């Protein structure tokens, strides 16, 4: 059973619309996104191809593109969407509470 563990990651105003922010917690790195329709999402922070920080990449609509080799993911689902990546990203639940972005980094 999955045990939830909600962590306060940042303020909603710290991520621009259609942009991404790196968040490190407990030795892991995550990427937090704010979509053009103003929803928040979270995925693992490193590209599945060569362990590069996705938060340095470009967000366009619901796609994050890796800054090294231009691999693409749909950050709303984690799905790999363009070469050279073929392994999808893990996603994490997000909750907004009082202007704060909370991420559930809980484990299975």
């Amino acid at each position, binding site marked *: 059973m999955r045990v939830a563990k909600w962590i306060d990651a940042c303020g909603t105003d710290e991520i621009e619309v259609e942009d991404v922010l790196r968040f490190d917690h407990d030795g892991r790195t995550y990427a937090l996104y704010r979509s053009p329709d103003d929803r928040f999402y979270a995925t693992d922070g490193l590209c599945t191809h060569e362990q590069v920080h996705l938060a*340095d*990449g470009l967000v366009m609509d619901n796609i994050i593109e890796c*800054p*090294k080799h231009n691999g693409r993911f749909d950050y709303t689902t984690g799905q790999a969407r363009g*070469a050279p990546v073929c392994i999808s990203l893990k996603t994490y639940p997000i909750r907004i509470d009082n202007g704060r972005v909370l991420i559930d980094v809980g484990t299975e």
Partner: protein
Amino acid sequence: MVIVGAGEAGARAALSLRQSGWPGAITLIGQEDLPPYERPPLSKKVLTCTTDTAPRTTVNADGLAADKITYLPGTRVCEIDRVHHRVALLPTQREFHYDRLLLTTGASARKLATESHSGAEIHYLRTFADAVKIRAKLDRGARILIIGGGFIGLEIAASARMVGADVTVVEMAPRILGRSVPQNLAKLIRQSHAEQGVAIFEGIGVTGFEPAGQQTRAHLSNGVTVDCDAIVAGVGAVPNTGLAESSGVITENGIRVDACLRTNDPDIFAAGDCCSFPHALYDNRRIRLEAWRNAQAQGQHAAASLLGAATAYCAVPSFWSDQYDRTLLICGFTDEPNTDTVERNLASGVNLQFHLASDGRLLGASAFGPNELIAREMRIAELLIERSASPGGDRLADPAVKLKSLLRAG
């Protein structure tokens, strides 16, 4: 569908054919014994990380099987019979029928003229096997001579330094990276090599070699001698066009294709380093690119063309080169005649350069710095070039104007 050449372009084409829903047979023919693998790490991580015993694959055996791609490693195509739509293979002597054929034969390292290095062993880097051979020479304190100050030569120089070898680079041209890198960036790169203790001689050639004990003594045209444990040459690449030529497929600095990547034979296409193609963004000038991203994108585009699409390939050329902890990024063309260059100073202290045509159109962009500080902005520049945008030099130079907002401006 038969694909000759299992590098990035060929492997991507095979995968794309299946992804696009092609239900029939796909045969991918590769000269090397390995599954299709990524070449960019060969001059970098493969040289510095001695534990890598296999290259990172583009697609492994399981992936090939899952996509029902017939992969023939260690196999050469010796003849294309265009009349009967057959290719003849070596060493098996088998013949294969094709409906449509894609040539992704790549390029080979240009060799030095033999008279210039009689007796000396010269290494070239193109394959994983080449990289493993070079890696074996890169001990701490080993003296390495690199002939050629282009991307490959300088990446090998950086990797060799990182494992503690003693490195000298000689470049015949007046400066390193003369072909496609703006002068001021070449200067920054030269500086970072100097800081790492690499000796770079520009405008200097090697006049001869002689044995010197266990080492080889190289005589340079400036009178300097270098005693070295290994010599690596990175003096450019030549497109592999022999098979095309012998079967009457027209070549012109590479296999000549149209904007859809089709050769003069309507059932034969070409993609990647081996082909020259007209580029719509640059007045349909015929160009040939030796770059991983181009190979990948052209492989995918060729797959669509093989299946009957008739769209022009017009991706913006884009290159990167990692040296130490910094990356050179170039997109578009930075050396067109009559262009203006404007600089954008990023908060991190790194500069981006934009290269604008006289009518204001953005033609190219370039930067050298930590990849994480420049990659996103450079990618936006690439999108602006792709859209033939004329965002205005003032706005490009103004750090208060977000580059991404220029994309929305259209």
